[in-house]
């Protein structure tokens, strides 16, 4: 039931309330405009993937004088998964004398160290362990410390829950023959899809994110994002940008933007696929997305202004796309504010035209904004050749609802941390695989 527009009681209140109302409406217009920009971006990416020219410039490099490569495996209490990735890495098709695996055991208190040491014994000369017992928490800090063992120009990075295929190392190394390339990112494919509704929804989300979003950015020469796993970085580029940033909450986003600002290209390879494990319970998923949101927002504050307006070699389209990419997690609280404003403006009793526009703004977002993301995921499912999993699309509203509130909560907590000076606590993503 809708309330009647409130009558203005006196001449003195009118200017003040009118001003406030007008301010609310203009803020709402701005929010709707930004939402429309993101909606258009979703459609542009999806249509590009469905009908546009597809760029896979390095994927067919099969025969080459392969360079020496170091594979870093970030691990913190990974006894459930460590053996799987080391097993996989020991059977990849890459010249054995040119590949060194460094498991970065970051202060593990479980059997991770024991498992790594067993592999070192079984494969002498191929694995050099890095057991870290102290120092700052977090993946970036661990990788930074491990760099003392790295002396190859090409570095690949995997999280411990990933299972690389035999040809993946060559595929990820190949783009580094191009001297402009500073970073490489492969595609992440969930392997524990069948577990429950959450894993199935995450499978769809990953599909949309990689199959459409990342590849479209690659096609359009925008800003493919370095994901920090199934990924590579050039040592000279890393040195030029100042190494791993241990103060960053998401070292991958941080790396993407520092590479971009220093003129290095990041390449996305959609066909370089690697299995990963996605969270199987909502609390773990919420923690994961909150950490991503905080890291992304941190990068937005650090690099946003410089990327858009600073003096560097990024193209105009890279500046615009990079800025929009930095803002994706800020959109959750902004959208919530937009919803609240739309309702507030309506119940404030605005002039009919404004009321209509306010309601239209809300419905336009509900219809276009959400639909664009759904369209993207449905298109990704089609490109992947899957069929019936796309029927789960309506349930994604549940995933979006959880995300929008979790990401907004992360933003609020980040602001309060700024005020109180609290330090970020690194939450490791829990694993669910059964120990072999």
């Amino acid at each position, binding site marked *: 039931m809708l309330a009647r527009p409130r009558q203005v009681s006196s001449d003195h209140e009118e200017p003040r309330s009118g001003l406030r109302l007008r301010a609310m409406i203009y803020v709402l217009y701005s929010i709707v405009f930004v939402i429309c920009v993101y909606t258009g971006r979703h459609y542009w990416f999806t249509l590009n993937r469905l009908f546009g020219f597809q760029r896979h410039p390095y994927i067919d490099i099969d025969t080459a004088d392969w360079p020496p490569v170091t594979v870093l495996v970030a691990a913190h209490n990974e006894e459930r998964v460590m053996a799987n990735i080391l097993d996989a890495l020991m059977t990849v098709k890459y010249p054995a004398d040119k590949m060194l695996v460094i498991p970065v055991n970051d202060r593990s208190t479980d059997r991770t160290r024991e498992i790594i040491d067993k592999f070192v014994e079984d494969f002498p000369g191929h694995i050099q362990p890095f057991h870290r017992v102290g120092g700052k928490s977090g993946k970036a800090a661990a990788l930074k410390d491990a760099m003392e063992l790295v002396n190859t120009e090409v570095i690949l990075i995997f999280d411990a829950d990933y299972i690389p*295929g035999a040809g*993946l190392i060559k*595929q990820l190394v190949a783009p580094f023959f191009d001297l402009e390339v500073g970073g490489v990112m492969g595609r992440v494919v969930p392997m524990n*899809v*069948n577990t429950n509704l959450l894993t199935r929804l995450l499978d769809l989300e990953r599909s949309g994110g990689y199959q459409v979003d990342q590849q479209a950015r690659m096609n359009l020469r925008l800003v493919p994002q370095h994901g920090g796993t199934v990924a590579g970085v050039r040592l000279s580029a890393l040195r030029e940008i100042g190494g791993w940033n241990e103060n960053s909450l998401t070292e991958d986003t941080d790396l993407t933007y520092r590479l971009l600002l220093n003129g290095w290209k990041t390449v996305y390879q959609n066909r370089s696929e*690697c299995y990963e494990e996605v969270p199987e319970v909502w609390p773990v998923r919420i923690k994961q997305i909150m950490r991503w949101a905080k890291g992304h927002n941190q990068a937005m504050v650090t690099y946003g202004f410089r990327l858009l307006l600073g003096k560097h070699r990024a193209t105009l389209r890279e500046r615009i796309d990079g800025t929009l990419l930095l803002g994706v997690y800020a959109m959750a609280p902004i959208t919530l504010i937009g919803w609240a404003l739309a309702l507030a403006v309506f119940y404030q009793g605005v002039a009919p035209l404004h009321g209509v526009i306010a309601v239209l703004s809300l419905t336009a977002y509900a219809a276009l904004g959400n639909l664009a993301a759904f369209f993207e995921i449905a298109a990704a499912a089609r490109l992947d050749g899957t*069929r019936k999993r796309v029927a789960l699309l309506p349930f994604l509203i549940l995933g979006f609802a959880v995300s929008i509130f979790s990401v907004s909560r992360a933003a609020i907590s980040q602001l309060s941390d700024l005020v109180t000076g609290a330090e970020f606590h690194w939450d490791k993503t829990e694993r669910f695989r059964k120990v072999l």
Partner: protein
Amino acid sequence: MNPLLAVAVLVCTVSLLLMLPLLPALVELRRKSDALPLSVVQQNAGEIRHFAHSFRDYIKGLEPIMQSCVAAGTSATGTLPDGEEYVVLGRLDEPLVRALAQRAQPTRW
């Protein structure tokens, strides 16, 4: 109509309408008919010689027949272990080769 009944009917109808798009989703969630991980080529991703190697392995059993056909300039037909039929042609001027070559000519529309 009783106002309470009208409200109940309205609520039920709206709920049913809202549930409608969820029906295929609920069926898929229960049946799990498409719930396997996407197929990732773990062994031969990006290896362009893989097709050649695997085809060579596939027709390995035909090697003696191919050699004898080439030597004698004859042709042979048969079935592979997986049930696929094959034709081995020992000469390029076999009628069958000519027919295939003609079929391969570009067609003008």
